[in-house]
């Protein structure tokens, strides 16, 4: 049992260390990368930002999993038990079939408690809030009246049009339907349908939860930039759907006007401008090129091959590192 506790300690410390490295690297690189992202098409930018948001935690979990892979495979298929190739004496095994003899250093457990408290607790809190929010939003959609065209209408003085991860319909408020001309309402609904097609609400949920590995200021910036990219990508799809970029820009400004002018924007500031300004400016300009998805696939395959190739040597390096620290 103590051996498995030692493995658990190493797992958590390894994930934290690797996530920390990726988070710091992102914090250093992203300010230089941001202007380049601005020139990309929003759909591609959204994909890259989604990956960046999740990078520390996901890469750390994958790489740590790969470090453990030789030890896990050996426990499942004894023929693959790599401990037999180097014997068990003389080093601490990172192996489920032959777990290490100790439960890990006490200092390591203090670090594990700090990590689980500092990152784990906010993650669990965000997960709980998201689950509660999903239930409440589902309830909102349930009380809204169904209307033609896959819409759900709810009685509210707020100019609301929204898409969600928990329903396939677009929600609009009575005040929005009453205030907008059919032409502008079409643009708004087209935008929200684009969010559903792109699965943006689900993307935002995953990005929000899995960006927990970033430093808080970086996390806020990445999530705000991702939100803007998703909005702009849906603006572009809506513009293609209605055949008029200016129609979407007009709809955006009409809804913003309905909310009334006010002081400083509270959220969604990205690229030094409010999201409304950035979105309208983008719609007034020609669409930015989206680039080829094949480039991203090639990068992903190369990174995966590198990670898998590094699994076995990384595993042995980890065992020697643990042994060195345990002395």
């Amino acid at each position, binding site marked *: 049992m103590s051996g498995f506790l030692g493995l658990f300690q190493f797992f958590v410390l390894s994930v934290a260390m690797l996530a920390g490295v990726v988070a710091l690297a992102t914090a250093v690189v992203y300010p230089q990368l941001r202007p380049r992202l601005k020139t990309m098409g929003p759909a591609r930018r959204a994909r890259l930002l989604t990956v960046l948001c999740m990078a520390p935690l996901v890469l750390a979990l994958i790489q740590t999993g790969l470090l453990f892979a030789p030890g896990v495979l050996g426990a499942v298929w004894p023929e693959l038990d790599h401990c037999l190739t180097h014997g068990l004496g003389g080093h601490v095994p990172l192996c489920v079939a032959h777990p290490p003899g100790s439960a890990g250093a006490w200092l390591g457990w203090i670090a594990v408690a700090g990590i689980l408290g500092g990152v784990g607790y906010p993650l669990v809190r965000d997960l709980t809030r998201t689950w509660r929010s999903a239930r409440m939003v589902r309830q909102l959609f349930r009380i809204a009246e169904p209307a033609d065209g896959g819409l759900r209408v709810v009685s509210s003085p707020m100019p609301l049009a929204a898409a969600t991860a928990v329903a396939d319909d677009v929600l609009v408020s009575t005040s929005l339907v009453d205030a907008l001309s059919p032409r502008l309402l079409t643009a708004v609904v087209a935008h*929200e349908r684009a*969010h559903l097609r792109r699965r943006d609400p689900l993307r935002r949920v995953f990005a929000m939860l899995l960006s927990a590995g970033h430093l808080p200021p970086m996390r806020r910036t990445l999530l705000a930039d991702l939100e803007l990219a998703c909005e702009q990508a849906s603006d572009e799809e809506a513009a293609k759907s209605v055949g008029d970029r200016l129609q979407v820009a007009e709809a955006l400004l009409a809804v913003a006007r309905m909310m009334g002018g006010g002081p400083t924007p509270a959220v969604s500031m990205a690229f030094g401008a409010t999201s409304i300004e950035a979105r309208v400016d983008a719609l007034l300009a020609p669409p930015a090129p989206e680039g080829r998805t094949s480039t991203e696939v090639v990068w992903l395959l190369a990174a995966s091959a590198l990670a898998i190739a590094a699994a076995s040597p990384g595993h042995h390096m980890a065992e020697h590192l643990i042994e060195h620290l345990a002395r």
Partner: protein
Amino acid sequence: MSKTRHNTPVLGELEFAVMDFLWREGQGDVRAAHQAVGAQRNITSNTVQSTLKRLHDKGLARRTKVSHAFVYAPACTREGFHSQVLDQVVGGLMHGQPDAVLAAFVDLAEAAGPEQLERLEALVKARMRDSEVSP
């Protein structure tokens, strides 16, 4: 029923159906509710009774004892409940609490200044004029 934004109860499908019955009829006992809601769902009157009790515990229904049975009535109007649900979802967005589950067309907490809106509207109008002049 509690008026605080965070305490709006979340109802399941059966709870919704039973509340719908209470709002429609004004009041009813377990037998009436089961006839209206439970029979077509192939559920027992015990299940409907438990549902009514849960609604009572959530503060959405009140009950009075008549002879040996409880008679249930809604503790709030349908519009009042809808208003609370909307307030809970939209209210959070209005107070700058981004909700990853709901993506709004215009961020409700982001209020662009009037000068900014005027500038952008002028730009859009100018572009529309240009496109009319030179199609």
